[in-house]
């Protein structure tokens, strides 16, 4: 699996993501500047890391979604390529329309930096194969706008088609609809989620709960 990590101005978890990818994939990801118009040849997986692209000054992810590289990412997704968006990456993907819904301000209006528990809703995807279905794992959150919202029809469809990837299983701190923490595209090849599995891939940093995500991708 050849990964490319996108770099938008204001992104700040790219180094965390590089560490996680390097460890599981055994090779370096490509780093792609937002003004590029094409992905490196041979890219299987595009990763949009967390941070504050363009300061999140208008709406989280809104300005990054208009970056030149995002046209290439859309084309990549349409070709059936893999896309992973974490935190701000998830927000960018929803702003682009690759995944439905939006991430609103946390219900409590405060930034939330703490560990949360996530439940794996299905394990028959390239992103989740290394987990048991229904497994619960710990993942750090660090966001001010993680309140997943979509209209009822969209939510019903996501549930009905099995496109909910992860749910908050302990406390739904940010107020997300139906405790949704992450969702798949209908072809199960695009995943967006708010918490940061990439920050728990090393026992030294508190555990390896997030590593199965990267191991799953590496094995795909």
């Amino acid at each position: 699996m050849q990964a490319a990590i996108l770099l938008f101005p204001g992104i700040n978890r790219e180094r965390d993501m590089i560490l996680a990818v390097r460890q599981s994939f055994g090779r370096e990801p490509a780093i792609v500047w937002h003004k590029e118009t094409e992905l490196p040849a041979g890219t299987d997986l595009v990763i949009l890391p967390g941070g504050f692209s363009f300061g999140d000054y208008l709406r989280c992810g809104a300005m990054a979604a208009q970056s030149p590289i995002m046209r290439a990412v859309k084309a990549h997704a349409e070709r059936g390529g893999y896309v992973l968006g974490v935190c701000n990456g998830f927000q960018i993907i929803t702003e682009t329309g690759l995944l439905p819904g939006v991430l609103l301000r946390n219900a409590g209006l405060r930034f939330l930096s703490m560990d949360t528990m996530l439940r794996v809703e299905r394990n028959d995807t390239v992103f989740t194969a290394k987990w048991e279905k229904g497994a619960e794992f710990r993942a750090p959150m660090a966001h001010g706008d993680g309140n997943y919202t979509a209209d009822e029809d969209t939510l019903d469809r996501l549930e009905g088609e099995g496109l909910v990837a992860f749910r908050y299983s302990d406390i739904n701190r940010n107020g997300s609809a139906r405790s949704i923490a992450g969702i798949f595209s209908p072809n199960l090849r695009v995943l967006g989620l708010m918490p940061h599995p990439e920050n728990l891939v090393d026992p030294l940093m508190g555990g390896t709960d997030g590593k199965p995500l990267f191991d799953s991708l590496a094995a795909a």
Partner: protein
Amino acid sequence: MTDVNLTLAKSFGLNEEEWGKVLEIMGRTPSLTELGIFSVMWSEHCSYKSSRVWLKELPTKAPWVIHGPGENAGVIDIGDGLAAIFKMESHNHPSFIEPYQGAATGVGGILRDVFTMGARPIANLNALRFGDPALPVTKRVVDGVVRGIGGYGNCVGVPTVGGEVNFHPAYNGNPLVNAMTVGIAHQDRIFLSAAAGVGNPVVYVGSKTGRDGIHGATMASTEFDAASEDKRPTVQVGDPFTEKLLIEACLELMQTDAIVAIQDMGAAGLTSSSVEMAGKGGVGIELNLDDVPQRETGMSAYEMMLSESQERMLLVLKPERSNMARAIIEKWDLDYAVIGHITDTGRIVVKHKGQTEADIPLSPLADAAPLYNRPIAETLKPAKLGPITSHAPLDQALMKLVGSPDLCSRRWIFDQYDSSVGGQTVKRPAQADAAIVRLDGSNRALAITTDVTPRYCVADAEVGGAQAVAEAWRNITATGAKPLAITDNMNFGNPEKPEIMGQFASAIKGMAAACKALDFPVVSGNVSLYNETEGKPILPTPAIGAVGVLADAAQAVGYGLVSGLSLVAVGDT
């Protein structure tokens, strides 16, 4: 045209004697811009005129100290060819006027002090003091400060890994916001501020200049009164997104050999950065303000020289590398402008619209800066505590302690700070006595803490000063790390009052003794005086920020108890 005279000088914060010195140096009546330059350079904030005689007593040397006080931040050797660069700085007054922006820009300022030297910031900490928690104003200030620190730090992507917070009515109208940044650089790529090379371009990088916080540096040097709440000086608004771009752009530029000297524009922005760079290099500097990127129209030379607009840097570049430098800066969507050049005149010359607005010899501006050996008086020590009369049952007493504002959980605060970004945080808040952050690509880690207990300093400033250093040392040691050096932030009242100066001098004495005994030098620091409201001072608060190193991050010890272990007490109780 404003008349430049003693009255104006006084309103700029200079006293009669200082005004006399200005006339003597200039040999004529200075222009408004020149007076502005003198007033900020000679403000307490920039000149340390009340504190310098005492700060000299602090030990600043050790074999592992690479740069002690005098640079933008302290630099120590942490092994493997790496250096830790760190400093603490206050943003107390602005944080009372506008808590969110005051605290946010405080974080931004200290980050610039560290990355300007070539370090990637890897950790932020803070030391906070607030008033009585029952007061509505305290709630407003706590809320704004915490959101401001988080808002800025989270956005720039530097983890906030620790800090401390206390409450006391003495801080009701004068909270303390001390922010600390630690960064990592290669020892052979450390950047200093001394300008050199006659003819080299002086380059402005970052955000545009507006009329922000004009005279903020002098504001930080005069006492607060009820009226200042209404005066509402132009508050600076932080732009963490631009700061993030500035960090990445500067670090990228630092990979090349384009930079001769670099300095952030902190308090008194263009004035202090240009005067300090040229002064340290023993050269001269000429600026043409027409070329300064401006956010507002019709700005005067005076306004541009004193503006405190945030997220700006001043660089001296090698001329043959300036095109490449421009390309890097512009790639990050930042303003880049050549606004002057280095000269051999030993003077700062400021031109604007064809006029010479300032022409001042640099060395007297620095050397003749006022230095006060202010009278000191012994502080009245509070009465000894009487015998304990209440004999509440132990469990109740414990509940009371655990529930008190000074001891209760700090989770509400640090849960709003991103402490894991960067992927190197081994011990987050509430996991160990000091935060532990690993160095990317190495097994090494830094242990970092901030400490001070002001009520000890009220009781005895010397013991309190020593205790703060010792506590920081113990917190580092308790994680298994070797304590290396400290930065400090001396927060005190009005130094013109002998008893305040007495507290200051005693605290320094105590700190110096502890630093010497522990081989724990001071490599950087900041002094914040005039922390008073209506004549009432804050508690003496010499905040200490300490850094230690662990050769193997995996050896870090936390304080989570695991069942089956034995508890051992060491030392006399």
